[in-house]
């Protein structure tokens, strides 16, 4: 990656003026201004559905702007195809993983611009280059020949990054790259971003985590309802209140709801000695009514698998799961006993993308609304609208197909599904992934409210502050084992981080 | 089976000087036969058209019958609505079109059934058909006699029928087995094809593989026989002789030339379509067949299956399709 001398940090490489993009029924971009300089990390902030992903897709040649002007390296720029954008030096890491499962890591990294001679792929050369990039990314242990579908989500994110780096890009756009990354992975990502910017490459960085923006960002542009509400704010020094205010048009304090005192109750869920070979070993835990139990751990520590097994979606190799003293053996039984689960991957595991939002929200409860097998669409819509209001779904329209919702809003639909049900135990896997600050506070409130109504909650999150702030009791998982358990207020972030990374703070714990 | 679509009338039944040949009242003949993807059926349609063209008092309304019995029922429904004087039809399946035959007869339109009989006698005025059972008999008879003459006592006989789910195939096979049984012979292996050359090739290849040595082979259909003969050549086999079926031009030529294992074919002549048109005209005009004493055309006519060999091939040349 060579950088011409003319483009040292500070020169404006990209300028957007009054960019407009409409979808059927939605004005996703309604006059966006953006200015990005070489060598800077420019952060985009905005609520779910503010238009961030749409904006970067316009830059990447996926969507075409209806109006407005884009100047890239001093010239008017309107990429007709993703390839045109890439050729012009803009590489993109999309919010939704865009990999081909049955191709190898190297093939994915170089898809569309293969290392080839006369149409024949040069596998060795591609593998070497990929290995080099992966090493730069700190993941030399990923083999370029591995098929992508055998990688966990975090691994896929790294391949997406490798793909972006495989282009000789002058601007790299990252749409919520940290959403599927754990704490330490984020640190690694930042190391790479710093390397890139040191070479004069510009980075547009999108995230809902303010802390990240403070750490890595240089300047911030805020979007609200498709409009730029503030540009070029200093990332490190702009007060949170101001940022949030520009995003939401109101002020939000980012706090967790208080933990009410709770009378001891016998647990509703008892898990004993649960094991799935290669995923987790001998997991035992309990959840009482009204209690929120959090599970912290690294990506790949087996938390999702544990949750899915408790829900009956995976068959346990050993151990028992009992709800109200009765064994849970399959999803059907679990749902009947009042267990609900919001899975981790919304697109592949949770949504019917072509169905309207309300049908997605009632996917687990429509039978409850039905009379004698006949569905009650009116009741379902009304209930879904209520939940939509509660979670600030935007647009506030439960009839549009789930596909047309922004990522964070899709997540709200998934979580909202179980708020409608007669759920007594809720399993939440990364419930706030991609959810914006305002809605997140609201979601915390809702989860706590459910607990106050007597629902037991088992919460998996890669954000340690979230687990600590929301849960009553915290379990720490590492490499498939539950290595520590304590009330949330007896733990702090450093302790948990140290634990999950096999630190030494609590010596004597089983490893 | 030739590369030129033969459109000329194959046979004329009305010799000159016959009173029946003189133009009479105008007759509209509705005609329906299954979609022709096979030489024999194509010849049926062509013969019917040519024969009708030979009469100045006949108008032929053909309706295409599509791919199956249901399509043919639909086509005939539109034909009946047009009220032709007589309907000539070669049904996909006689039983499946029985109801349609009844409907036409009830509507006052005499029905001439070609080749595939209706079970109910009220469904047709005239039935003219080839003799599938007799065809099998003839083939079996020929094979039996030849083998007996050669003194083969325990012959290995192969059979390649056409589409096996058709009733006509069953009848041919039954006739064949019956005739062989009179000689104390039976079929060693039977591989059905689909009346096409490529399926004939595939079936014959399989059969030849299963029977490393064979004495005689009956292939029900000369069209698929092209493929059967190709397979025999490809397998380099010649220790047996073969009998064909239906009587295509190519088969008759080959028998006459005696240049392959094909030594005979048993006829199932598409000329019946020509006869059907002639007789339909007579029915429409209320006349009888001049060589019969009866004043009306009889109700059933079954054509005999003949055996074409090198000796009589020249006689049949112009009957080949």
């Amino acid at each position: 990656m060579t950088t011409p001398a003319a483009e040292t940090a500070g020169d404006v490489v990209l300028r957007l003026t009054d960019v407009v993009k409409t979808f059927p029924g939605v004005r996703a971009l309604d006059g966006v201004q953006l200015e990005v300089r070489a060598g800077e990390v420019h952060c985009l902030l905005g609520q779910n559905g503010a238009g961030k992903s749409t904006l970067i897709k316009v830059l990447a040649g996926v969507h075409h702007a209806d109006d407005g002007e884009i100047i890239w390296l001093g010239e008017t720029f309107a990429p007709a195809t993703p390839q045109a954008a890439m050729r012009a030096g803009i590489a993109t890491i999309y919010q939704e993983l865009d990999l081909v499962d049955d191709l190898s890591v190297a093939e994915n990294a170089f898809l569309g611009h293969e290392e080839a001679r006369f149409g024949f792929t040069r596998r060795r050369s591609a593998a070497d280059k990929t290995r080099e990039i992966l090493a730069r990314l700190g993941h030399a242990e990923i083999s370029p020949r591995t098929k992508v579908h055998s990688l966990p989500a975090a691994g896929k994110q790294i391949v997406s990054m490798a793909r972006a780096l495989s282009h000789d890009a002058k601007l790299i756009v990252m749409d919520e790259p940290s959403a599927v990354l754990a704490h330490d992975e984020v640190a690694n990502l930042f190391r790479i971003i710093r390397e890139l910017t040191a070479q004069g490459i510009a980075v547009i960085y999108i995230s809902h985590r303010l802390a990240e923006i403070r750490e890595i960002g240089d300047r911030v542009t805020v979007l609200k309802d498709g409009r730029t509400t503030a540009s070029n704010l200093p990332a490190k020094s702009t007060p949170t209140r101001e940022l949030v205010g520009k995003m939401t048009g109101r002020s939000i304090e980012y706090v967790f709801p208080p933990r009410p005192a709770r009378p001891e109750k016998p647990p509703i869920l008892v898990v004993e000695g649960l094991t799935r070979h290669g995923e987790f070993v001998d997991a035992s835990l309990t959840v009482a009514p009204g209690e929120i139990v959090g599970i912290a751990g690294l990506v790949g520590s087996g938390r999702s698998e544990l949750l899915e097994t408790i829900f009956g979606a995976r068959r346990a190799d050993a151990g028992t799961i009992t709800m109200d003293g009765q064994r849970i053996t399959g999803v059907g039984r679990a749902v009947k006993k009042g267990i609900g689960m919001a899975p981790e991957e919304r697109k592949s595991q949770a949504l019917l993308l072509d169905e309207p939002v309300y049908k997605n929200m009632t996917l687990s409860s429509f039978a409850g609304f039905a009379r004698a097998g006949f569905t009650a669409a009116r009741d379902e819509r009304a209930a879904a609208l209520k939940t939509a209001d509660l979670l600030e779904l935007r647009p506030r329209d439960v009839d549009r197909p789930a596909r047309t919702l922004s990522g964070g809003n899709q997540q709200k639909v998934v979580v909202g599904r179980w708020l409608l049900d007669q759920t007594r135990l809720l399993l939440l896997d990364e419930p706030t992934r991609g959810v914006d600050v305002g809605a997140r506070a609201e979601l915390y409130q809702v989860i706590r409210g459910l607990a106050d109504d007597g629902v037991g909650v088992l919460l998996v999150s890669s954000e340690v502050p979230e687990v600590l702030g929301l849960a009553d009791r915290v379990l720490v998982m590492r490499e498939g084992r539950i290595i520590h358990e304590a009330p949330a207020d007896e733990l702090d972030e450093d302790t948990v981080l140290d634990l999950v990374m096999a630190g030494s703070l609590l010596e004597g714990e089983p490893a | 089976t030739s590369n030129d679509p033969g459109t000329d009338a194959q046979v004329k039944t009305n010799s000159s000087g016959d009173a029946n040949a003189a133009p009479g009242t105008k007759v509209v003949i509705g005609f329906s036969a299954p979609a022709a993807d096979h030489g024999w059926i194509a010849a049926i349609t062509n013969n019917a058209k040519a024969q009708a063209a030979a009469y100045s008092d006949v108008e032929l309304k053909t309706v295409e019958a599509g791919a199956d019995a249901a399509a043919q029922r639909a086509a005939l429904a539109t034909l009946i609505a047009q009220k032709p004087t007589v309907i000539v039809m070669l049904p996909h399946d006689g039983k499946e079109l029985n109801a349609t035959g009844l409907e036409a007869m009830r509507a006052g339109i005499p029905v001439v059934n070609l080749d595939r009989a209706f079970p109910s006698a009220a469904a047709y005025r005239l039935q003219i058909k080839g003799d599938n059972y007799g065809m099998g008999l003839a083939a079996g008879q020929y094979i039996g006699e030849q083998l007996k003459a050669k003194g083969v006592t325990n012959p290995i006989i192969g059979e390649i029928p056409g589409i096996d789910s058709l009733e006509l195939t069953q009848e041919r096979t039954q006739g064949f087995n019956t005739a062989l049984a009179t000689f104390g012979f039976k079929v060693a292996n039977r591989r059905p094809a689909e009346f096409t050359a490529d399926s004939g090739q595939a079936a014959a290849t399989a059969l030849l593989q299963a029977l490393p040595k064979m004495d005689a082979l009956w292939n029900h259909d000369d069209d698929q026989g092209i493929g059967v003969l190709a397979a025999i050549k490809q397998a380099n086999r010649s220790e047996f002789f073969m009998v064909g079926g239906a009587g295509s031009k190519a088969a008759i030529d080959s028998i006459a030339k005696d240049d392959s294992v094909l030594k005979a074919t048993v006829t199932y002549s598409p000329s019946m379509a020509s006869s059907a048109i002639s007789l339909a005209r007579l029915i429409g005009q209320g006349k009888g067949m001049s060589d019969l004493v009866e004043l009306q055309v009889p109700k059933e006519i079954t054509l005999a299956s003949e055996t074409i060999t090198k000796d009589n091939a020249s006689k049949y040349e112009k009957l080949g399709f």
Partner: protein
Amino acid sequence: MITETAPPEVRSSPKKRLDDNAVRNLGLVGVLVVLVIIGIVTKPDLYSDPTWVRNNFLTILQQASAIGVVTVGMTFVIIGGGIDLSVGAIIALAGVWCTTLATQSYGAAGMIFTALVVGIAVGLVNGVLISYGRLVPFIATLAMLVSARGLAAQISGKQTQVSANDTINGIATTKLLGVPLLVWILAVVVAAGWVLLNRTTFGRRTVAVGGNPEAARLAGINVKRHTVLLYALSGLCCGIAAIMLTSQATSAQAAMANLYELDAIAAAIIGGTLLSGGRGTIIGALFGVLVFSTITNLFAINNLSTEVQNMVKGGIIVAAVLIQQFRYRSLTQLLKR
């Protein structure tokens, strides 16, 4: 915590999805109208006779009835993420089984019962192989196609079995209020199918299972059991169609309903059903069937030769889908404004 909550004003188009389907179906109606106009232009004499026109209309419907019933079942299977290549074979097996001399001795009720039970049973086997045997639907039902036709040939001894039962044979000739009974049966099946798909939990599950089986499973739907039911439903429709066809032909045989699978799948897809599952409409499927049966009718009254028929038919199918798409796109464009 949170101050001032004003939900953002966003323009949206409620009921948009409904319109999509309506527009699609409208496109098919347009295609039908065009076909009829072609008929009028090419055969003005026939179309000038109102009795003939009425009769012709009923004939088209009647010819569409059996395949229409099959298509309803097929639509469910496809929406549920599967495919059923064995429908024609099931009809043949059910038809042959219900016309054996033994079955016929039980009278019309016995024959109908037999056809329906055979249809459902074969459908259940399909479903179990696919759900619990984890066979790809294409392969499982293809295997069933081959086997069921073989069994039908075995049972019938490859003979065409004539139905001697006047009640059964009468189904094809009976009219109610001037409309053939077969058309009434189609109407009832379509109506029931529509209600089942759009107004019942069964229909909702079908869409979920086909649209995203993993999501359906995690939402607590018993995907395997539901899949079995879908194939059984298709089998049931085949059983009904077998009776209709047997009545029309007053007979049954192992080769009957040949290639119905292709026709039914094509009609469902033309009607807007997604081959990959999760989306589809019963009304659209019905229109798909009607388009095919109107094309056949058009060919018949114009007496096109089979080869020309076939060449033209392919073109019409393509044109129909293109017209439909065109209308669809331009209409949704209009709706946008």
